[in-house]
């Protein structure tokens, strides 16, 4: 890459993109660069470094709304929210453990661009459900906005959804407005020790089907649980199924009691206090169990929750690897010894029966350039995807190749 441009304002972003459009250059769009290994390696001629576009411009705790420049560090946002006992309810993942950079959680723009959501996803929604509005510069070099700062808004197409998870291929985000929510007063985790994967899925389903408003349901098979940083989990002596309950104190206590009654048939029961709970769910969120030496390849699969255990079993029949489950069985994390094709046939083949999609989260640049990192699309959908890309970025100047080869 020849050089890096570091615009200081949205106007300078416009100029830079217009220059790229006319000069046949292309940009790798970067906030802090913490998620560069996520997605396909970008084939751009230069970097567009947005780190100067930083700062919280709007925060009204009673309105549950915050607005920030795209490259505002997530750590700054989370610290500001914590002062008012608020949070980003979708629990953005921090990939730094997996990628070994120690570079922090990145920027709010990166979180939105990748639609990264943690264990609370099934209960509270994804990043895409919390973006209220944005301003961006399209690959045409034109500024455009969508949405607003209010929660209920159906005025015009919901481009906030489209831009979230688009890996910076449709527009360069400059301003982002999002919903924030109260942090829970109390937090507990109910544990079931020793359940097999299939039984654990049933247990989690039972918990999620109850009226207990479970905000996290994960299952760590014995080998994964043993590597957990929370003693109560690593020394459990078997698999650990974890059910998170949050909210007002009297409610949390009542729901934990109900859940213990519901789940005792599945194994020995335990419970984590607030501090241990936070540590455990952070590790579940960030796939810390698979950080290791940085060598193994890591997949993230989204599947119908009831099919989680069978999907995992089918994959592990073909590949030597380890899995754990989040989202009540709907999210599988898989780590495996490196293969030239990352075992993608076995991984994606296992999705055929029940549906779902698989993302190759960690592998070398060479592997990620040759194996489709995101789930390949059927022809009609791929063609529609290409037409949408063309509607925003006809010359392909923004993050070329970041999602799909040739897009």
């Amino acid at each position, binding site marked *: 890459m020849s050089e*890096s*441009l*570091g*615009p*200081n304002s949205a106007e300078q972003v416009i*100029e830079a993109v217009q*220059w790229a*459009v*006319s*000069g046949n250059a292309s940009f790798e769009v970067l906030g802090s660069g913490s998620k560069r290994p996520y997605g396909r390696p970008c084939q751009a001629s230069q970097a567009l470094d947005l780190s100067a576009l930083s700062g919280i411009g709007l925060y*009204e705790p*009673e*309105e549950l709304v915050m607005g920030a420049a795209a490259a505002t560090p997530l750590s700054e946002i989370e610290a500001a929210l914590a002062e008012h*006992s608020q949070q980003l309810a979708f629990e953005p993942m921090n990939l730094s453990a997996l990628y070994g950079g120690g570079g922090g959680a990145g920027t709010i723009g990166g979180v939105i661009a990748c*639609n990264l959501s943690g264990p609370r*996803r*099934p209960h509270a*929604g*994804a990043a*895409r*459900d919390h973006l209220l509005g944005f301003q961006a510069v399209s690959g045409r*070099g034109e500024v455009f*906005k969508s949405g*607003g700062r*209010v929660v*209920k*808004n*159906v*005025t*015009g*197409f*919901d*481009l906030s*959804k*489209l831009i979230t*998870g688009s890996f910076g291929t449709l527009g360069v985000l400059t301003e982002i407005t999002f919903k924030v*929510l109260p*942090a829970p007063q109390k937090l507990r985790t109910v544990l079931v020790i020793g359940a097999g994967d299939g039984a654990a899925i049933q247990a989690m389903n039972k918990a999620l089907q109850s*009226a207990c*408003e479970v905000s996290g349901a994960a299952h760590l098979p014995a080998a994964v649980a043993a590597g957990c940083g929370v003693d109560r989990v690593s020394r459990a002596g078997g698999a650990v199924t974890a059910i998170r309950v949050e909210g*007002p104190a*009297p*409610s949390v206590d*009542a729901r934990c009691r109900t859940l213990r009654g519901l789940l005792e048939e599945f194994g020995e029961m335990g419970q984590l206090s607030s501090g241990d709970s936070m540590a455990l769910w952070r590790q579940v969120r960030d796939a810390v169990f698979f950080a290791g030496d940085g060598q193994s390849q890591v997949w993230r699969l*989204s599947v*119908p*929750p*009831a099919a989680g255990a069978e999907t995992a079993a089918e994959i592990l029949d073909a590949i030597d690897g380890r899995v754990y489950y989040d989202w009540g069985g*709907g*999210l599988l994390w898989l780590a495996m010894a490196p293969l030239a094709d990352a075992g993608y046939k076995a991984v994606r083949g296992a999705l055929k029966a029940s*549906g*779902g999609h698989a993302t190759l989260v960690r592998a070398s640049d060479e592997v990620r350039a040759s194996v489709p990192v995101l*789930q390949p699309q059927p022809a009609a*959908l791929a063609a*529609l*995807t290409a*037409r*949408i890309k063309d*509607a925003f970025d*006809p010359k392909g100047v923004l993050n070329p190749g970041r999602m799909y080869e040739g897009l």
Partner: protein
Amino acid sequence: MRMPEPDAGVISRRSEIIAALGAIVAGEGVIFDDDELGAYECDGLTAYRQLPLLVVLPETTEQVSRILDFCHLNGVKVVPRGAGTSLSGGALPLADAVTLGLSKFNRIIEVDFGNRAVVAQPGVTNLAITAAVADKGFYYAPDPSSQIACSIGGNVAENAGGVHCLKYGLTTNNLLGLEMVLINGEVIRLGGKHLDGGGYDLLGLITGSEGLLAVITEVTVRILKEPQTARAVLLGFSSNQAAGDCVAAVIGSGIIPAAMEMMDKPAIHAAEDFIHAGYPLDVEALLIVELDGPEAEVTYLIERIEAIAGDVGALGVRVSWDENERQKFWAGRKAAFPAIGRITPDYYCMDGTIPRHRLPEVLNRTAEMSDRYGLRLANVFHAGDGNLHPLILYDANVPGELEKAEDFGADILRLCVEVGGVLTGEHGVGVEKRDLMGEMFSEDDMKQQQRVKCAFDPDGLLNPGKVYPTLHRCVELGRLHVSRGQLRFPDIPRF
């Protein structure tokens, strides 16, 4: 309301189109008799009426695909229609367009408790989804007031809300997957029973796209377990300001109720006279706050809300005694529109959303407008998320009053945008707010949205004349205006 000029060529080919579509849908699938077409001449926005060219009622995805393919090849416009309950004219017919009704897509395809999902055809009503899972104690959360009649496909097209979306989200937050047909007849499936499908979030884009992008032929939604307990609290206030302060204080204290609704004095009186819900009549504003969850949580939160209400000077607090009384509290609110309908020949319902803290100011200014226009106003709204429903009372039989009501409504929406809000929170733009889009969006913003439309429907055949005030040709929208041949910006730091 100015609609696109009807294409005389298409109208002259009407019998040919009837024959072609009749060959696709057997039996009584094509309606072309004027008397029968009358049932389709408007949707919930009854001020605008137009007979469609014809109506086609397919029963299978394949038929929808063949119909759209035919219309695409023959340059015939298509207006998709669910149950026809849109309040913004989203399903308003066009003289030269086929109205494609999904009413025969009325089956629940699958109830899947293991994955907490229901797969339904788009013509199934919102309430029928809950009815299909209620025996196991589940329900579908979004609850628009028209839920007994409105279809789930229409809910997706409009991103329908309801009183409980404060806690449980809108349609978009409860949708897992769908099947849709593009204007060229291609069938595309998005999502499923898993979350976050990967690739561009077309599921999110389609939701709320008001029938401009594709025709929805199947929907997968998530279902939730009914909360253990739900109780509603009535809080009366001596001013709108005090009620607004209470809303801010509740949210500011970290409580997100299941619903938080507000009514002003005219709305309270109309509803009470109609339903006898037990509302206090000596107050200026009323809040209905619903708490749900485990018994212990509801009891605890009600105590806190009573304390907060006391601090901001509530005149009276009443907690629903049992499920019967809770339903009664809601019956008044849910019947507020028809209740207003009893005291005025016609009313016009607006749907702007504002930042909550601007509520008292907006109410004061709309009251001034009401005096200026000489038209009465009643306010019912989703206070928790700032979504207003001002109802303008008028009489269509008085010459000029409809136009006056429309101007008044437009002023209210301009005010919503001025204070940082939006034109529509849940009813959609349709034809009703189409010409106000420029209040919120720049020409470039709207052009970018229309380029998205071009990616789906390059000939602009799906629901034209809705949402966007100016129709641009896709070729024109796609043109790139590049003026700079070199790096002009000496100031951009490089490294």
